[in-house]
């Protein structure tokens, strides 16, 4: 025996080409699909990340804010590099680098030392602390730790240090976004409510949205309306900052005084209901003015609803410019509808995106044939079903909750569609199914500048439609017989 554990020594066996062929065909079959869908424990290619990633995104949305990971250092590197790859922008965040001894003694010493160093080196205005697995498993008491840090002078007395418990073994990145955001708003607005004061502003929360173009689009729409506004957790400048020869560690974010004063707003609207339940509940209970939680405005109908709601909240007419914008978008859609009508799609992603894709496809006359969420809920399923039931194009479309992209592959191979809407991770399934993948979700690691093109609002609908229709036309041009290759399409 030449191995340590006394394991049997075997000759290397090459798999025969016949066997490879057999399995390659087998994984595309109905039989395999059934086996695949019978999985109880193994998750393969999930379309969701863990809570702290969303928490970091929310933290980047505030002025001068340093995201701070309480936990192992590798976690911070993973979140940072994911955001770097998607936005192709810096994503500064620190960690307090807990190691084995943290498991024994708890992470307070690391947290304190980390806060002191982070303040000295990176001079933040606010530090947003969130947790990865280790402190969650050993049960670190963040409330006490941070209170002690302030008492011992590791953070300046007046520096806000909101913190959130964001265990990775619960929920997904959208839940971490919610927990961090609500904590930041609680911290910022504490004691800031002034009886009788109204900022006259609309507070807008985009939800766990990784598209900087969307944030700019919201602001543009509200500017068209002439409505003063505060976008909370505004990542647009944080993750789309100028290249001008200087690096600014805190390139953007909601001004802290605006965040504090948001509690005195005229109205607050969240457009990511699935990514902001806790935040919205806090706002409803504490913020002045009106409170609205409504779906991400993807497609014409959902954008109409958003625009009308804003008009209603502020007692304003929809401005002519937005009416025209809607008209131009509809014009673009009617011009292009024939290239998408009747096409079958598989869609997957975070709940708020997913509702948007489905709604958009149905109104274009396309079928969201396979709808898949790798971490969904009964509520989401019901809401998606209601969308399908409301359209003749929803007939025969099916919803798959808590399924992953390996399930999706089985669906694509046994019940084919024309295209997928999702994120970069869908490219393997798309390649096997020989269909295009439209990367409207998160993350996009393999195309440039996608996050700069909004997918919300009328402009977003035009952007999505243009990309989809032109791709179908490209495919026709690239694959048709010579005699069918023509100038006009």
């Amino acid at each position, binding site marked *: *025996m030449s*191995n340590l*554990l006394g*394991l049997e*020594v*075997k*000759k*290397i066996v090459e798999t025969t080409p016949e066997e*490879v062929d057999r*399995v390659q065909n087998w*994984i595309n079959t109905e039989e395999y699909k059934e*086996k695949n869908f019978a999985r*109880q*424990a*193994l*998750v*393969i*290619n*999930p379309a*969701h990340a*863990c809570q702290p990633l969303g928490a970091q995104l929310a933290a980047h949305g505030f002025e001068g804010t340093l995201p701070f990971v309480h*936990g*192992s*250092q590798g*976690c911070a*590197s*993973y*979140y*940072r*590099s*994911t955001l*770097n*790859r998607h936005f192709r*922008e*810096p994503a*500064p965040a620190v*960690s307090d*680098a807990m190691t084995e001894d943290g498991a024994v003694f708890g992470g307070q010493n*690391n947290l304190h*030392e*980390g806060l*002191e*160093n*982070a303040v*000295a*080196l990176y001079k933040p205005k606010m530090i947003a602390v969130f947790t990865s*697995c*280790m402190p969650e*498993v050993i049960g670190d008491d963040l409330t006490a730790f941070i209170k002690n840090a302030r008492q011992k002078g590791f953070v300046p007395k007046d520096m806000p240090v909101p913190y959130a418990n964001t*265990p*990775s*073994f*619960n929920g997904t990145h959208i839940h971490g976004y919610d927990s961090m955001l609500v904590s930041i708003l609680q911290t910022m607005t504490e004691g800031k409510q002034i009886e009788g004061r109204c900022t006259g502003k609309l507070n807008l929360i985009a939800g766990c949205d990784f598209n900087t173009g969307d944030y700019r689009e919201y602001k543009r729409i509200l500017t068209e309306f002439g409505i003063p506004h505060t976008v909370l957790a505004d990542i647009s400048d944080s993750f789309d900052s100028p*290249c*001008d*020869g*200087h690096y*600014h560690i805190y390139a953007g974010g909601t001004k802290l005084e605006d965040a504090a004063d948001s509690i005195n707003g005229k109205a607050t609207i969240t457009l990511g209901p699935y990514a902001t339940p806790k935040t919205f509940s806090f706002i409803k209970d504490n913020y002045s003015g009106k409170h609205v939680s409504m779906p991400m405005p993807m497609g014409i109908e959902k954008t109409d609803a958003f625009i009308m709601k804003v008009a209603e909240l502020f007692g304003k007419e929809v401005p002519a410019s937005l009416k025209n914008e809607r008209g131009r978008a509809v014009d673009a859609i009617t011009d292009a509808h024939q290239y998408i009508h009747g096409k079958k799609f598989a869609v997957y992603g975070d709940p708020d995106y997913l509702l948007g894709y489905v709604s958009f496809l149905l109104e274009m006359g396309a079928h969201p044939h396979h709808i898949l969420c790798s971490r969904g809920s009964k509520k989401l399923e019901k809401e998606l079903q209601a969308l399908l039931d409301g359209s003749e194009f929803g007939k025969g479309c099916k919803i798959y909750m808590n399924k992953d992209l*390996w399930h999706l592959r089985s669906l694509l191979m046994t019940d084919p569609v024309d295209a997928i809407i999702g994120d970069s991770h869908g490219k*393997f399934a798309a390649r096997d199914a020989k269909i295009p993948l439209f990367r409207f979700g998160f993350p996009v690691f393999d195309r440039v500048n996608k996050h700069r093109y909004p997918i919300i609002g009328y402009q977003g609908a035009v952007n999505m439609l243009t990309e989809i229709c032109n791709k179908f036309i490209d495919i026709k041009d690239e694959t048709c017989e010579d005699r069918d290759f023509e100038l006009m399409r």
Partner: protein
Amino acid sequence: MSDKIRKIEGITKESTEALIAETLSAYPEKAKKKRAPHIGANDQGSGSACVKSNKKTVPGVMSARGCAYAGAKGVVWGPIRDMVHVSHGPVGCGWYSWGTRRNMVSGIVGVTSFPMQFTSDFQEKDIVYGGDKKLKTLLEEAHDLFPLAKGISVLSECPVGLIGDDINSVAKTSAKELDLPIIPCNCEGFRGVSQSLGHHISNDTIRDYIIGTREYAEPESPYDIALIGEYNIGGDAWSTKPLLEECGFNVKAVWTGDGELEKIAATHTVKLNVIHCYRSMNYMCKVMEEKFGIPWIELNFFGPTKIKESLRKLAALFDDTIKEKVEAVIAKYDPIMQEIIERYKPRLDGKKVMLLVGGLRPRHTIGAYEDLGMDCIGSGYEFAHTDDYDRTAPEMPDATVVYDDPSEYEFEKFADALKPDLIGSGIKEKYVFQKMGIPFRQMHSWDYSGPYHGYKGFEVFARDVDMAINSPTWKLVQSPF
């Protein structure tokens, strides 16, 4: 190794030490004390490390380091193409490390190769009740759905070790039941100080569970070698393996780039181990040397000078057949390399580069830059040890700054003061420096390019370095108004 002491104009021991002192002055006392031994001015003549290394990261400073799990999953195990690698624990770790290292694989995805994300996706109840049962079911499911997978690795994430699960016992039982190698790897991210311990733990599990469990079907030959520490980033192994074959060797296994489990398992019968990434795999070379008497040699496949040196060093251990073939290979590629140098050197001569990468490239790539006329004016590692810094000293020009696990603050300060024409580091650093208008190449992933290894790689490397430094886009950074 260069014999002469190289100086860079404007850089002296004093100037470097002043820069270090100024940079450290921003730290609180305790952190300053911790960081100070990790930054130094190179003493080229000494041939030994000028910094301390492999120590805990200082909390809160913004380190580039990853964790033991990253070293295990991303570096050692992930590249083995015909195994299912299970990220055991919550969903995140596996998701973040899914397809992000660029260790290319051949084969048919989901049939004969598995560059996918397999996870037990721990939920609260798994933390409370333990995940061993789930793991057992999951292993059966994986074997069922991927019958051609040659084995399964179980890579522990933080919670697994904290809640006291026994993956080793589950793996043992399941391996027997499924008649399949199932390798438990206790590489929780909180272990050790960096990716490095993950490499070591993984090497140890290969030693315990894999090596010596297979035999090559074909008879042995005196030219059987294994290529160790070659991860096929951007197709590197598809450059180096054919090169070694051209030199007359039978490359029996690659560890672990585009790797095959059974070939790795039979490596104990080769005549020589050729190691590229010393940091992540020296452990196994030493084990095979002690246990099976297999000698090993460190090579450098970056840039024609180092490649030539390496091939001759390798040939010297073999007979005339190999020596002749190696000389023929060198003679074949020399003029091609000369042509590349003539094309790019005039555009790059005298340009300065700063590096911060993992555990090998901050020293191994210096020669390739020098082939192009460039100077390395600062270098450092995320997770190197003293033996790496010893090997770095002679490669770096004298008195240049060496940094171990630098914070982003330090790296920025050094770049600001030294004004390099190019920085080679990772994705987290890339956009920071590009905002500053400094050309940058990701040197972990070859910035979505590659290969950079071997003769084939040098042409790509030279083209990319030129593209980064001489792109007209940098001229647009300064606005005219």
